[in-house]
């Protein structure tokens, strides 16, 4: 018999209802604002990120509504430019970058390590407080005269526009530090707080992916911080760095910017790989196929991600030699990415597949991310990129990866860990309908944009040629469907907090350590640190579904 992954006394679930847990341990608003508990910090991150997501989503719907007609629909040129800038900046800096690591990661990762908290709880709290300060700066820009540079802040436009660039850029600068703090904390946590017996190759894939992400956060984020600071200094003090009229070089900004922002793409997508790596084995009741290859491929992607920033600059006047090197390395990223997709799918082979909401999101991710990844190959081919760059093809590609990949995985993880974090089950039927709406919505929104782009429709266009209208209308209808899916999701998730069925400790039959403490977890997570004696996905056969409980129990405990 394979041994269960932890000793029996921690496997036995404690009573869940009414007992002391991290949500009820302390009372009052201050006990939240100044908490050092990783779960509470994670919950605050989660609701802050979801609020920002609603705001960014609102701007997206405004942009899509404006694009229903070739000319003016509901707003003027400048408002439109501000809308797409805010949509991008909020979604990137406030939602996707902190989404999986800082919200879901904070709640779950220490539990998966059997730890009482992260390595530096105060740094963790500081990271959240900085997120709030950064968000306030971004909103300040919105209140004064919203920034209209696009989320990329390209110089010299960002140096000359009259909109409030400085608060927005300073907000992004502060959010960078928030991200660095989380990354630093997670690196030390993974190194130092693993329980006895949990070797590196017994880490759950979610932890692997957060570790790889944290390395990028710590190494790449300082570069965007310095770059934005230089841009602010140049804008306020007129020191020539990027402005050609002051002797600066505007393309230098693009190099600095993408030196961070390409790795940042992996800060956004690698944690999503981790979530998928947790969901697929549990809902297939099978160990992950090719675990080591998946774990190491995350590190490979993180490393290669640092060496490809120049593929954003094929038409910037960058030298042919530099472009060639960047293109070659870009292709290499296709390999670890393909390895992951093939391994995930193979894991389902001969499994026992449960199509619950988290699994539906994981399946949606697999297919949509495949399209996002394959269209990335188009853009890595230099001659084809010359035609496609700065068109809707690029928009469609990175929305397939960021929205279809990162957000879909975030939704999957949110549904997977929701019972653990809040001790309540959501309405499964509505969950499945929501997942289907999101899947249909995102394909209808973004697939037409591939066609628009290859036919020549440039990005960030307020007016467009009438010949493009039908595809734009289709895309907008898709966006409304997406909006509907997310509204429905918000509705049943919030409803579950009040009236949802009490969640068992282990509703899905997971074997990673977070499923061994009660839902919601007690304040100190584990009374005794669990001892790990097997791999992260060993022991599905040892669990038994109990219908009365609505969750899984160890087979031995049930029979005994």
């Amino acid at each position: 018999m394979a041994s269960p992954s932890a000793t029996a006394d921690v496997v036995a679930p404690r009573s869940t209802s009414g007992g002391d847990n991290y949500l009820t341990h302390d009372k009052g608003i201050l006990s939240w604002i100044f908490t050092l508990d990783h779960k509470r910090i994670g919950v605050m991150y989660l609701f802050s990120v979801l609020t920002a997501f609603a705001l960014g989503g609102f701007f997206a719907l405004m942009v899509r509504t404006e694009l229903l007609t070739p000319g003016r629909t509901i707003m003027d040129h400048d408002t439109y430019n501000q809308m797409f800038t805010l949509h991008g900046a909020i979604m990137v800096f406030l939602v996707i970058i902190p989404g999986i690591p800082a919200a879901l990661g904070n709640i779950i990762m220490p539990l998966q390590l059997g730890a009482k908290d992260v390595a530096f709880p105060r740094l963790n709290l500081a990271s959240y407080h900085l997120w709030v300060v950064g968000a306030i700066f971004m909103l300040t820009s919105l209140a004064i005269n919203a920034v209209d540079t696009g989320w990329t802040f390209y110089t010299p436009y960002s140096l000359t526009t009259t909109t409030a660039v400085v608060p927005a850029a300073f907000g992004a600068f502060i959010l960078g530090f928030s991200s660095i703090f989380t990354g630093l904390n997670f690196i030390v946590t993974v190194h130092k707080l693993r329980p006895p017996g949990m070797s590196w190759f017994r880490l759950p894939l979610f932890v692997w992916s957060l570790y790889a992400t944290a390395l990028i956060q710590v190494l790449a984020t300082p570069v965007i911080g310095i770059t934005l600071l230089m841009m602010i200094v140049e804008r306020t003090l007129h020191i020539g760095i990027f402005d050609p009229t002051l002797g600066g070089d505007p393309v230098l900004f693009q190099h600095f910017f993408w030196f961070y922002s390409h790795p940042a793409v992996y800060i956004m997508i690698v944690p999503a790989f981790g979530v998928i790596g947790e969901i697929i084995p549990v809902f297939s009741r099978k160990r992950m196929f090719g675990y080591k290859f998946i774990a190491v491929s995350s590190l490979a992607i993180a490393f290669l991600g640092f060496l490809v920033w120049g593929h954003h600059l094929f038409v910037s006047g960058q030298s042919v030699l530099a472009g060639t090197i960047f293109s070659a390395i870009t292709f290499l990223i296709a390999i670890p990415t393909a390895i992951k997709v093939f391994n995930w799918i193979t894991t389902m082979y001969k499994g026992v597949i449960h199509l619950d909401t988290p699994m539906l999101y994981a399946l949606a991710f697999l297919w949509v991310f495949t399209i996002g990844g394959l269209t990335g190959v188009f853009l890595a081919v230099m001659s084809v990129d010359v035609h496609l760059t700065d068109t809707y093809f690029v928009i469609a590609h990175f929305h397939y990866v960021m929205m279809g990949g990162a957000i879909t995985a975030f939704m999957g993880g949110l549904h997977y860990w929701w019972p653990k974090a809040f001790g309540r089950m959501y309405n499964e039927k509505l969950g499945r309908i929501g997942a289907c709406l999101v899947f249909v919505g995102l394909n209808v929104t973004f697939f037409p944009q591939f066609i628009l782009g290859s036919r020549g429709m440039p990005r960030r266009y307020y007016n467009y040629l009438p010949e493009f209208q039908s595809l734009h209308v289709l895309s907008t209808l898709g966006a409304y469907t997406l909006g509907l899916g997310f509204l429905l999701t918000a509705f049943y998730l919030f409803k579950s907090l009040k009236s949802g069925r009490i969640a068992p400790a282990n509703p899905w039959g997971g074997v990673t350590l977070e499923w061994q403490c009660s839902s919601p977890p007690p304040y100190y997570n584990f009374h005794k640190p669990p001892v790990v004696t097997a791999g992260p996905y060993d022991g599905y056969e040892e669990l038994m579904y109990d219908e009365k409980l609505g969750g899984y129990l160890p087979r031995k405990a049930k029979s005994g």
Partner: protein
Amino acid sequence: MILSLSTSLANAAFALFAAEPKLPTLPDSPYFWMPPSASVTTSNTDALFNFMLWMSLFFTVAIFFAMARFCIKYRAKSRAANENAQKTSEHNTVLELTWSIIPLMIVIPLFVGGFKGYVDLRTPPKGAMEIRAQGQKWKWLFTYPGLGSPDDTLHVPVNTPVRIVINSVDVIHSLFIPSFRTKMDAVPGRYSDIWFKATQTGEFPIFCAEYCGTSHSDMLSRVVVHPPGGYETWLANTIAAADSLSGKDRGAMLYEKQGCSTCHSIDGTPKVGPSWKGIFGKMESMTAGSPMKVDENYLRESMMDPQAHIVMGFTPAMPTYQGKLSDKDIDGLIEFIKSLK
């Protein structure tokens, strides 16, 4: 005789300017995914694009069917049934290597093909005809050999290699000609270039592909590919027309050709800049300093040093026309503005 000829030529030219449609039209394309192919530079791009399209279709469909098949075949009866997964191997080095090496084998030729096409796109043939393109907020201006003032439309002869030397006077723009599958950023303070050899006569749209502010999406132009001999005729006619026009007619021509119309209306609606209708002789409040009278000197200053005095309610967005407008041009524009009562 000569006088009447030049007048009729000027009228014809003016009619030509006035009759030009505002928006370029997207030509019908024989392809679903791509605009028509109208240059020798498109074959590499289109071949690689089509290959990747089929490759992507293959993988997307294969993955979809694998997932669908597994979900149907191995679907759990219910949680209560407590089925265990069938034992399979958890690791298979041969399989891992196979699905690492096959993608590698696919991307190597893609890289090489893209590299070849890119080098070709970036290397203009020797002796190509040269045309200067300048990006400014929010207009493309093309300068032709022998033509004193720039034109807002790109005119080229068919079957002739043409090199476009590009720069920008303000922020970064990007010259994008979808039907030629080529694009290059216009960067202030440096020159870049593209080249093409048009294979089809007709008109094709030009877009600005790098976000450049308020009217980014109105920074459109057209490339007109002339049949053999047509380019030379067009150039001779345009030079003659440009030389013959003077006074307010010259101003009216420049209003369209130099990009003034992008930001200044002549019917009283304020756009990015103040409307020219009735502005001459008015006292205007300025964003800084005391109010000023819009007279000849103010108008001249606004063309040469546009940021010096900005009318209240507007932002400093206009590029300088220093060196682009002759004294005759400036006089013409002032006369044109005066005529807009």
